[in-house]
């Protein structure tokens, strides 16, 4: 039995401790917002937060996540109103959308650590997240917009 804290809820799951966290999230718990892309930490579609860091859940064994705090795209905000989510909607960032939950989870770490990122910072932070539709320019624009929303929000 493995106990996991996901999006502030506790889940007890009967799984092999070696099972990738992504499998547990999607197939056991049913949180399917996180996607399977490559399975070998090369694309970023499976990105979730473990204790605030953007881990690739396809290669993170569930035993590593035990005792930690996991946040998936479903738990990034309570009302889908994280500055990144607002910016993503405002600028219609996704095309097919498959990689976008990973993109947003990566960007959330960037904005937490650097509230006013430059293009260079964004490129460095987002380089591990691939998008086959090529929405990179909209992603970059949306991160700038989210940073602005976040700054305005923190001033109020």
């Amino acid at each position, binding site marked *: 039995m493995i106990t996991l804290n996901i999006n502030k809820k506790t889940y007890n799951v009967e799984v092999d401790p070696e099972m990738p966290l992504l499998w547990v999230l999607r197939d056991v718990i049913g949180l399917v917002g996180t996607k399977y892309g490559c399975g*070998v*930490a*090369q694309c970023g579609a499976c*990105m979730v937060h473990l204790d605030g*860091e*953007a*881990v*690739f859940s396809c*290669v*993170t*064994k569930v035993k*590593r996540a035990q005792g930690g705090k996991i946040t998936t795209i479903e738990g990034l905000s309570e009302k889908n109103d994280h500055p990144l989510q607002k910016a993503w909607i405002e600028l219609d960032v996704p095309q097919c959308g498959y990689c976008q939950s990973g993109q947003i*989870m*990566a*960007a959330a*770490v*960037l904005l937490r*650590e*650097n509230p006013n990122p430059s293009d260079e*910072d964004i*490129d*460095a*932070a*987002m*380089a*591990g*997240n691939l998008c086959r539709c090529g929405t990179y320019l909209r992603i970059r624009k949306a991160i700038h917009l989210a940073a602005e929303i976040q700054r305005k929000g923190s001033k109020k």
Partner: protein
Amino acid sequence: MKKRLETKAHYLFPIKTIVVIGVILSIIVLTTSAFKDNNIAADFAGYENVNADSAESVKAFLQVYKVLMSPRCMNCHPAGDQPLQGDDSRLHAGKVLRGKDGKGLYAAKCSNCHQPENTPGLHTPPGNPKWRLPPADMKMVFQGRTARQLALQIMDYNRNGHKNKKQLVEHARDTLVKAAWNMGEGRTPPPLDYDAFLKVWDTWIQKGGYAPKQ
């Protein structure tokens, strides 16, 4: 009045002496403890006086050099800020960068992919709990160094991560150094096995840590 002054001087003299002796003692104690903290003088001298042999030392280092310049060691000691990967030491996928502490940046931190252990399967990230590059303020570059340059760099306390010779000997036993021999599927191990590496590493340092001429 004169008598009073003399009396005062009589009392002042020992106080002055005590203060001076105190200051001298403090300096001695502080200096000793400073050396004790990093052990530079003591250990470097100790090793250099025992069994120094420049020919043996250099011969051992040339074996060490082969290991350090193999992809398993050099890939995380790159000349730039982007690590290398694979047996061909190509630039690391995803343009990941060193970051200030050597542990990556933002959403691209080393341990986001590199787990505490190897991930099974071909082309998957190798793992170790301490996976990282040297930090930005002490890059400890191997890539592109000649044998002489690398030997001098490793023996330089200000360029080797502030390690004295004793700590260098210990460093070869570090779990992240050992990880070079636990490289995961599809990667070639360093050219010497781990025990042979330890032997030449220790010999190089214990015989004086000499650098080859080139």
